[in-house]
């Protein structure tokens, strides 16, 4: 488990030096992006309309924070990651269009993004889910917020962060996916349990939803 501190914006060379399973901490500016903000960003880019931010060589965070308006601006009380698997498609499209180097989130991302990360030099960094109070303390300042009309969670928040982490390199830019080994071990372990209990893995116990084999 290698651990290192990285600054944003990040060079392609830096990203390419990371290996799935490493631990990193980030310093610099991160942009939250999720759900409707993905949709609006991609729609704007497709229609060749300007967006009020740039992710070039930067990091986006699948995060919808809890914020409070205070005299000097905004205060973040809790900020952690939302489940990243649902952004595999939009993130794969956005990555080269905006030159993103790091996507911060939680859980796995789909296989579809791996080749894109390899081609363009980007990585997926996994936070610990549910740790909103913990990561909020690593946000030193709310620099800006865009698209508040999408609601507090879905707006694009611009955060200055200091040692944001620990972040686990889930997918690196060499085609490595940290979760592959966990998933394949889990498959083997489940097969062993099925065998022990006398469950035939090819037998379909479920009537509905109908499996593909039964539907024909």
């Amino acid at each position, binding site marked *: 488990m290698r651990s290192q501190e990285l600054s944003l914006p990040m060079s392609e060379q830096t990203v390419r030096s990371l290996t799935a399973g490493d631990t990193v901490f980030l310093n610099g500016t991160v942009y939250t992006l999720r759900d409707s903000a993905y949709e609006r960003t991609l729609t704007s880019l497709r229609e060749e309309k300007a967006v009020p931010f740039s992710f070039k060589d930067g990091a986006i965070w699948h995060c919808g924070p809890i914020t409070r308006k205070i005299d000097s601006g905004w205060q973040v009380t809790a900020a952690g990651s939302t489940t990243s698997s649902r952004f595999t498609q939009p993130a794969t499209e956005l990555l080269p269009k905006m030159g993103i180097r790091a996507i911060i989130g939680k859980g796995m991302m789909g296989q579809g993004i791996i080749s894109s990360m390899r081609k363009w030099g980007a990585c997926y960094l996994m936070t610990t889910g549910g740790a909103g109070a913990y990561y909020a303390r690593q946000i030193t300042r709310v620099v800006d917020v865009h698209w508040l009309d999408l609601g507090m969670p879905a707006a694009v928040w611009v955060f200055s962060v200091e040692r944001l982490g620990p972040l686990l390199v889930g997918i690196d830019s060499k085609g490595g996916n940290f979760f592959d080994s*966990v998933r394949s*071990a889990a498959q083997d372990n489940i097969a062993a349990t099925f065998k022990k209990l006398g469950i035939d893995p090819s037998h379909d116990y479920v009537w509905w939803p109908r499996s593909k084999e039964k539907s024909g």
Partner: protein
Amino acid sequence: MITEETISAVASELLHRATVMLPSRVKEAVLQVYERETSQQARLQLRTILDNISIAEKCDVCVCQDTGVPLFYVKIGNGALVKGDIREAISQGTKLATEKIPLRQNVIHPLTKRNSGTNTGWGMPYVHFEIEPDLDYVEVTALPKGFGSEAKTSLMYIATSEDIELGLTKCLLDTVLSAMGEPCPPYIIGIGLGGTADIATWLAKKAFLRPLGTFNPDPLVAKLEVGLLDAVNRTGIGTMGVGGSVTALGVHIEFCGTHTAAVPVAISFQCWAARSSTARIYSDVRVEYLTTVTGVVQP
């Protein structure tokens, strides 16, 4: 006489307690996982979780930024004296809590995606009522449900020509494998068995109201809970899916009679931030908060 004002204040305080302070049983369970776990990657995840729990308590901020959708379960005793609209009172309490704590403004219209900004509207907060004949109080539980775990809920029907226990085991492990680390393990699994689709999914959710570490009073079902917990933990998925010896803190099954043709099975996940808080309001307006939140979690 229990008034709307009292219920509203209690609803707001329950959301506050639930979102900031985890029940003692949950904290103890997570700490035990940390002490037992040998995977270094999982221990790093657990360390962050434990630090997070203590920061939230110390700073009086939400444990997780996804403060969920507000779900309330209300038991009304036949002997309780209530005046006014309980649903409206809970809605007012939710608005107050959203602004005061603050909670994240999560509730949107399912088609237009418009955010009400108050966590209320279009049927939210959801309030489930049960009438209890022998009680002289109103018992309110707040269970804010985050969607990382909620959106992994599965429903299927096992034909009764099959062995139900084996079928259930296969369904559960298939679902657990598909979900991997997404529902934020170490999680609690709620299983609703029987009834109809709506009853099964409701029972799967109701299973989370049962305190962690307790078993179904039916010994046959309790034995199944133990076996399924063991099977899930043998997957090795571990905390946040990084690999480890504990994936689930508990498997809770609730059941209901069903049709002779098939058994509906609902499988639901509750992330490690298993937030809930319960209070009783007596007719003399005395309020008793039941959920214990004490306990040190620092590793």
